[in-house]
């Protein structure tokens, strides 16, 4: 696989949220606005890339039986670094995303890539894979966030589009499920049209 396709596969073909249906909790919980979704996506991209690098470095030294606990500890360490960085530089975003930042540890995408890709491939490939999947995740979250913000508060990235309140239900919990459901329907339609 060429290096470029490693970077782009996460966007459509192996899109973690819409195609693989992984990492649902942050996808639903943090996308109340486009900016929050984007921020959560970048945070996950950071963890995904760094943990892929670390795991591809140590994979050969780790005995097979204890690999999952070792991977989880490495991922948790990267998440802790991210928590400290975000507390220092983006405290407002850290406060809005709240519990979902430490919960990146149990995001199935991160452990999934560690197990399925980083443990078997070179450091450079794993880095690219982490960035690629992370970009796909960021894109999905931004799309969901944009749609919810547009419908729910009639604005995009905090910029008011019209003098209306929007339908609050899309910012609240039910809207998350419904918007994500319809985006997947659209994805399925597009996929069946292409093939």
């Amino acid at each position, binding site marked *: 696989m060429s290096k470029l396709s490693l970077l782009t596969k996460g966007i459509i073909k192996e899109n973690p949220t819409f195609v693989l249906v992984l990492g649902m*909790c942050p996808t639903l*919980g943090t996308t109340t606005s486009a900016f929050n979704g984007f921020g959560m996506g970048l945070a996950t991209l950071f963890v995904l890339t760094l943990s892929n690098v670390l795991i591809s470095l140590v994979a050969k030294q780790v005995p097979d039986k204890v690999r999952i606990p070792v991977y989880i500890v490495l991922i948790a360490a990267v998440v*802790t670094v991210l928590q400290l960085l975000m507390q220092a530089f983006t405290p407002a975003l850290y406060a809005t995303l709240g519990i979902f930042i430490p*919960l990146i540890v149990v995001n199935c995408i991160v452990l999934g890539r560690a197990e399925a890709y980083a443990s078997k491939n070179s450091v450079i490939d794993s880095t690219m894979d982490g960035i690629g999947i992370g970009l796909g995740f960021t894109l999905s979250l931004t799309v969901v966030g944009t749609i919810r913000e547009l419908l729910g508060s009639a604005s995009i990235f905090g910029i008011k589009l019209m003098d209306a309140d929007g339908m609050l239900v899309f910012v609240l919990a039910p809207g998350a*499920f419904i918007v994500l*459901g319809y985006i997947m329907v659209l994805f399925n339609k597009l996929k069946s049209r292409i093939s």
Partner: protein
Amino acid sequence: MEYILIIISAVFVNNILLAQFLGTCPFLGVSNKVSTAAGMSGAVIFVMAIATLVTYLFQYYVLIPLGIEFMQTVAFILVIAGLVQMVEIILKKISPALYQALGIFLPLITTNCAVLGVAILVVSKEFAIGGDPHMLNMAQSVVYAAASALGFGVAMVLFAGIREQLDLANVPKAFKGTPIALITAGILALSFMGFAGLV
């Protein structure tokens, strides 16, 4: 009285699945049959109550005295993973029947973000249940965790019941599988919003 408020709040008003989006993976993954959903919920109630008790003690008697609260994420995930293993071994020994019923769900629970989520929530967030916002004490934390897990169970079983019917319905091709499940979950969440303001 306070405990009743905590339970109502955690089960209905702030349902962990439908209002806080924790544990969505098993919610979508193992909710095809009512019996599996009930089994998973039983295991989650069990593990979540014990995990929250242990992580609560760990936070207040190890992390805070040592001044290493920033190690919370690493410490909690290790404690939970170890605990799930231990529960599995003990259950196998003392109650094979219960192990038979919950066994296959236990390994899945380590990566159920609801368990880690609730463990972190109770030690980091102030709750405004029965008066001014305050940190929960140990008993309240465990009750809150068990009630959250019960809320998880209620949502899981309801949703599984709907999905069993949904399998027989004639759904458009593009909606089949996850999309229609998500939209159904949205409607379920909408009906749970009716409980808002109860506590």
